[in-house]
């Protein structure tokens, strides 16, 4: 139930984040994109291709393009700079591991913690049952043995 709730919260946060901004800012887009030749954020790069990209973003914003449109046009046609300019690993091929491993790790860790908690609580219950489960006869015999040991 908690897991479902957590997934719903994650989705609620992720969906607005993925929506397109109809009025993107130059600075916002430059912070999201990466210079494909020097591999630094666009707003920190002054390489020739970075300057070309900044000029393109400026023009497209003035023309009323959304941030999604501008990103798509830089990655694919007409500019075909490739997904490297997005600054996030690709969701296919070997790069997919960059997405799968952390999420998989979180999932495995959650299962391991849950399982550990279940084992721990079960052992504790068994210990308590054992501790309080002595019969009167056994208790008397233990007392006798202890008294004889003390003597």
């Amino acid at each position: 139930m908690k897991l479902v709730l957590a997934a719903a919260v994650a989705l609620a946060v992720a969906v607005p984040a993925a929506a397109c901004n109809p009025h993107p800012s130059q600075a916002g887009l430059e912070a999201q994109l990466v210079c494909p030749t020097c591999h630094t954020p666009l707003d920190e790069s002054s390489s020739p291709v970075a300057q070309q990209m900044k000029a393109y973003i400026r023009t497209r914003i003035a023309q009323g393009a959304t941030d999604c449109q501008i990103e798509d046009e830089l990655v694919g046609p007409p500019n075909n700079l490739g997904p490297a300019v997005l600054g996030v690993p690709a969701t296919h091929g070997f790069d997919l591991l960059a997405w799968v491993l952390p999420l998989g790790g979180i999932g495995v860790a959650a299962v391991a913690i849950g399982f550990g908690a279940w084992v721990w609580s079960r052992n504790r219950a068994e210990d308590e049952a054992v501790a309080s489960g002595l019969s009167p006869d056994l208790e008397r015999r233990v007392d006798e043995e202890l008294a004889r040991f003390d003597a």
Partner: protein
Amino acid sequence: MPLRRLSQAAAVAVVAALLALLVWDVANNHAGKVAKEVDTGHPYTAPLFTRPLVNGTGTFSLLSMRGKAALVVNFWQSYCAPCTHEARTLAAVSREWSHNKNVVFLGIDVQDLRGPARAFLKRFGITYRNVSDDGSLVGRFGVTGYPETFFIDRRGVVVPVPHVGHIIGPATRQLLNAGIRYALAT
């Protein structure tokens, strides 16, 4: 206890799987192989690609040239100074060979925006086909800088031009003609 063994086996399996993935990636990674092989005198099959045209619509496929023509493949960028030094020579030599249907010039424009790329082609009078590359072909051919020029024969093999391999830096008329003649002869 079986649970403990099971988790240990799972951990070993995960590590083995990641190791296998790494080995597979290294084995299938041909980055740099073309340039290295050609520069040491060994012909190497050109990696196949299909890329969108910069000067025109549609795409260009390397496979479509197989058995038809030898290719001069030039990697360039619009903001690369040495590329501007060779651009007029490339344009002129391509015009001189334009009567020969067995020779095709192809430009590969790497990580350039379309506007500046088209302006570059117009400025230097380049009329042969140019495709845009997102950087992946650079890795597959082993290009380390711009410009670089390879020669591919009709079988689709990148040929090592004697004493040159492939052209690193601005191409000269002599080197281009030597490469074309060598690619046509193989």
